[in-house]
């Protein structure tokens, strides 16, 4: 399965010639069922698991001592935990957008990448979900946010943006899990039927719930998947709008921005596509999927990243422009301090990584240069974390009350939590690599059939 940029037609190809339904099914399921666990997996998993251990230590110490181990202070009472949260939930959006939004647009390039993207989403959401809980001063009371009947006759405060966020993330976790699982059913059945070892047959048999692929099943399945896709697309936008409202809902200068909801959606999309790229580029080689994940996919994802980057850059401009347009003194103070103050290096780093660097993707050659593209995507992912960091800390350190102005200095525990959460994500993702088909086989079969039909015509 070679993949070299050739004629226009080649570039449009989402499947390399020679790939058949049978070969795809065989290859993808053998990755899970037959293939010996490769060395790179063990290494990768080992490292991730190490980081995950770091996460456990950091959180353990946090639970013993309290949030004081972090750099957060007065007036900057929010720090890494919130930035991490927004970062993770943002990247999660990538999977949902690709598999939901582009399902609705019936994009043919979606099929091969949706599984990787969705799996990524599931574990990103997991990381995101943990952050707000450990962020609490008294995390052991997080359940007070549930409206459950209690002897105190008390309720959560539904007006709080934080509560909207709590509900949103809850729904998003449920949503992305279901969406991912439903999409897996037919492939799990395939694994069940191909598996030779007993434990595999039982495992995948259970997971497949007895999927038969009967016309009745397919008919219900397509309806449900369509409905879910139609729901998830707006849902993911609402999630990030609400995350934006977490800040816009407060009157801190720099947060109190009407543009925040779309701003955050664009940001989420950008980081989402970037992280998908970062996974797809190495995986298509590692899993020998170059036949089905072609340069076409890379190209499309790169273009999407570029688009998102442009949208976000527009928001960046507005962010700087608005305060001066409104003439709000305090907002001007915030912006100027961002541009020139203590956090200026961070601010400009975010501009370069999220706004400037992706612009090289206008050039096709560069776009198709995978190592370079990978680096750009990495830059964006880092840049998006920095963006959140600047938003959270930068505004608070120039709040309404000058006498309280101070800076935030992260501690080793802040970094440990951040790095650890990455470990948590990778650990999960590596396990998924080992036990779950990384390409949606049934969709590819359908796709190949369609292509054949078109080819025939």
């Amino acid at each position, binding site marked *: 399965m070679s993949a070299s940029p050739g004629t226009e037609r080649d570039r449009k190809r989402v499947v390399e010639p020679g790939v058949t339904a049978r070969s795809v099914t065989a290859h993808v399921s053998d990755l899970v069922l037959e293939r010996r666990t490769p060395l790179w997996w063990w290494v990768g998993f080992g490292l991730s698991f190490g980081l995950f251990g770091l996460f456990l230590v950091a959180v353990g110490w946090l639970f013993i001592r309290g949030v004081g181990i972090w750099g957060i202070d007065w007036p900057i009472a929010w720090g890494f935990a919130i930035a991490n949260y927004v970062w993770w939930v943002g990247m999660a959006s990538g999977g949902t957008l690709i598999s939901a939004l582009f399902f609705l647009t019936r994009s043919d390039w979606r099929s091969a990448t949706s599984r990787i993207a969705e799996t990524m989403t599931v574990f990103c959401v997991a990381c995101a979900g943990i952050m707000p809980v450990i962020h609490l001063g008294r995390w052991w009371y997080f359940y007070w946010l549930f409206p459950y009947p209690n002897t105190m006759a008390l309720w959560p405060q539904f007006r709080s943006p934080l509560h909207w966020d709590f509900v949103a993330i809850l729904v998003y976790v449920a949503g992305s899990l279901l969406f991912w699982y439903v999409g897996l059913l037919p492939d799990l059945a395939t694994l069940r039927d191909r598996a030779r070892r007993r434990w595999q047959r039982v495992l995948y048999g259970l997971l497949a719930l007895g999927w038969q692929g009967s*016309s009745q*099943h397919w008919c219900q399945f397509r*309806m449900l998947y369509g409905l879910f896709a139609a729901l998830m697309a707006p849902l993911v936008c609402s999630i990030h709008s609400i995350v934006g409202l977490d800040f816009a809902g407060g009157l801190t200068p720099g947060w109190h921005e009407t543009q925040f909801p779309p701003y955050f959606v664009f940001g989420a999309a950008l980081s989402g596509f970037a992280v998908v790229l970062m996974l797809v580029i190495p995986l298509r080689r590692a899993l020998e999927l170059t036949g089905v994940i072609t340069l076409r996919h890379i190209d499309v994802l790169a273009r999407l990243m570029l688009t998102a980057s442009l949208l976000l850059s527009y928001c960046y401009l507005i962010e700087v422009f608005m305060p001066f347009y409104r003439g709000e003194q305090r907002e001007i103070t915030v912006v100027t301090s961002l541009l020139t103050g203590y956090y200026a290096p961070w601010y400009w780093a975010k501009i370069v990584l999220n706004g400037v660097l992706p612009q090289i993707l206008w050039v096709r050659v560069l776009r198709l240069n995978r190592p370079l593209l990978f680096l750009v995507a990495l830059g964006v992912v880092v840049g998006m974390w920095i963006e959140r960091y600047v938003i959270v800390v930068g505004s608070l350190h120039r709040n309404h009350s000058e006498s309280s102005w101070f800076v935030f200095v992260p501690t080793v525990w802040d970094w440990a939590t951040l790095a650890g959460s990455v470990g948590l994500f990778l650990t999960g993702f590596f396990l998924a690599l080992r036990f779950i088909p990384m390409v949606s086989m049934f969709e590819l079969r359908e796709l190949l059939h369609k292509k054949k039909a078109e080819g025939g015509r």
Partner: protein
Amino acid sequence: MTVRRGTGHSLRGRLAAFDSPDAMLESLRRLRQAGFSRLEVYSPYAVEGVDELLGRKARALPLIVVAAGVLGAVGGFFLQYWGMVVSYPLNIGGRPLNSWPAFATSTFELAALTILLAGFLAFCKFCRLPRLYDPIFDAAGFEQASQDRFLIWIAEREGREDGELLQRLLPNGEGVRIDEVPA
């Protein structure tokens, strides 16, 4: 009349396996013309046209989902209204007790949640999942249905011997094989 129950039949029947979806569709059409009503198709992906031939439509699912959505929205808003206005009204930052704009987002999210759950449950119900055992799994070569073959199951009709009729309808060879399915 058509067979509603897609699976779980305890009827004797025959299973015709095809390599190509088109051949399967062709045969299916013939079978329908020949008056076979109790048919089911098993395929590695949804084949266009089958639903029309077998008259399948997932009418209920969208309705259920919409109903669930409405229910979730109304319930979700009521929950917030009840807590903030009726059960324990508090003056929160001078905001009105019924700050409905502030309740809107959660209302939407809760609607989405109910849709997701109801949708999934309804789907399981209609597909009769989970159903780990089904006689059809024991049918020879059925495992191919989830990979690259397209099966048609034909129920044995009471007091009729369709053997040679089927022989005619489903020309053996060129990627077609017919097996008896035991009850």
